[in-house]
Every structure is written in structure tokens, then in C-alpha cells.
């Protein structure tokens, strides 16, 4: 493997890690938001 490929691999891996983490935050936020809405509805009822 050409040494430049290691450079591309490192930069790509960095952004895969960051974007995967952002994806988990968005997922958790959606789940919590819908849970909060359910709780509000059940409290109102």
C-alpha cells in the first residue's frame, strides 16, 4: 500500500467516526423527543 493511502485512510476514518457519532446523537434525540411527547399526552389525559 502506497504511504499516501494511509493518509487518505486516516482522514476518511476520522470523518466516519465523527459522522457516526452525530448520527447516534440525532437518533437519541428523536427517541427522547417522542418519549417526552408521549409523556405529555398521557399526563394531559
Amino acid at each position, binding site marked *: 500500500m502506497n504511504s499516501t493511502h494511509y493518509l487518505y485512510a*486516516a482522514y476518511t476514518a*476520522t470523518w466516519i467516526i465523527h459522522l457516526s*457519532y452525530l448520527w447516534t*446523537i440525532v437518533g*437519541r434525540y428523536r427517541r*427522547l423527543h417522542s418519549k*417526552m411527547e408521549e*409523556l405529555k399526552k398521557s399526563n394531559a389525559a
Partner: protein
Amino acid sequence: MKRLFPILAVLTAILLGYSFYQAMFVAPTDQMQGDVYRIIYYHVPSAWTAFVFFLTNFIASIVYLIRRNPKADAVAVAAAEIGVVFCTVVLVTGPLWARPVWGIWWTWDIRLTSTLVLWLIYVSYLVLRRFSSGGQTPVLAAALAVFGALDVPLVYFSIWFFRTQHPQPVVGGGGSIDPRMLQVWMLNWAAFLCFAGLVFWQRYRLEVLQQEVEETQALEALLDAGSSR
């Protein structure tokens, strides 16, 4: 505040793009390593960003232990998670740099091993937070974080005091670096700090929302118990 976030996100994206361009195409090529040395512009700023967030976690944990303030706990959890993400980047980009330069992926020397131990300490902190639901969990996690933070100076200063495979510090450690390289290095650190700050902001909001959901659920359970009597 809601309006400010998209503006800051766009500015950070521009800064990240500009610093990437500087790292890949403007910074001079290293005479010994060639272009592969450019991994430094992601590897080292990620390590420093991780240290900043582990320090934030340490301070927030102490504040939580003293005042039992839930907001301090939310800051601690969010900071630990961001620190682990950046430390993961360090542990992935490090071997990708070591292989072409040292001829090996990994060696058990003090800098690399202490960084791995640091990552494991904060992963265990997050596992504790995720899978333990007792009322004392934030206190135990804060205590773990205070002890875990002791590894941060060990990681940072290990290359000052021990002979290791890892290169000696070129910033503040008596070594030297081309000023143009240093400029791009600092630019990338600034970009990653801005990015990490924005992610931290959202992660903190998520933690506060989590606390609100837990409080509402606890209140609902109390009301249900009261009405069933």
C-alpha cells in the same frame, strides 16, 4: 440560541473545509516522511481536543460532587462522550500513521499504552452511566472521572520523561517545526475545537432532555402509585 446554532455550524463547516485544504495542499511536505506526515493535522488536534473535554469532565465532576447540580452532571457526561470520540480518532489515526513510518501498527510503549488506558477509563465511565440506573450512579461516575483524569497528564507528559517510540514534542518541548506547518496545525486545532464545541452543545441539550424525561417518568410513577391507593 436556536438561530445561532445554524450560523455557527455553517461557519465551522467553512473553517473545517479551509483547514482541510491547508493541511492537504498548502502545508509543505515533510522531507523525511513525505505526504503521510499530514496525518499530524488530524491526529494531534484530535488528541488535544480530547484532553480539553476530559478536563471539562474533570471540572464538572468535581462541581457535581460538591454541589450535586444536575447541570454539572450533564456537562460531565457530554464532555466525556466527546472526549472518547476524539480519543478514538487518535487511536485509529495513530496506527495508520505508525505503519508506513515505523513499520508497525502498534507498540506497547508508555504514550500509546497510557492513551489506550485513558480511552478505556472513559469508555468504562460511559458504560457505567449507560447501564447503571441507581440513584448513586452520577456520584460513582463523578468519582471515577476524577481518578480517570489523573491519566491525562501521564499521557501528555509521558514523551517528556520517558524514552518512547512516539516522537518527542515539537511544540513546547524543545523540538522545532516549520512555522507554516505550525500555522496549519493550529488552524486545524481551532477548527476541531469549534466542531467539538458545537457537538458538545447538542449533546448537553440531549442530556438535559434525558434528565427531564426521567423526572417526568418518576413523577408519573409517583402519581400512579398515589392514585392506586
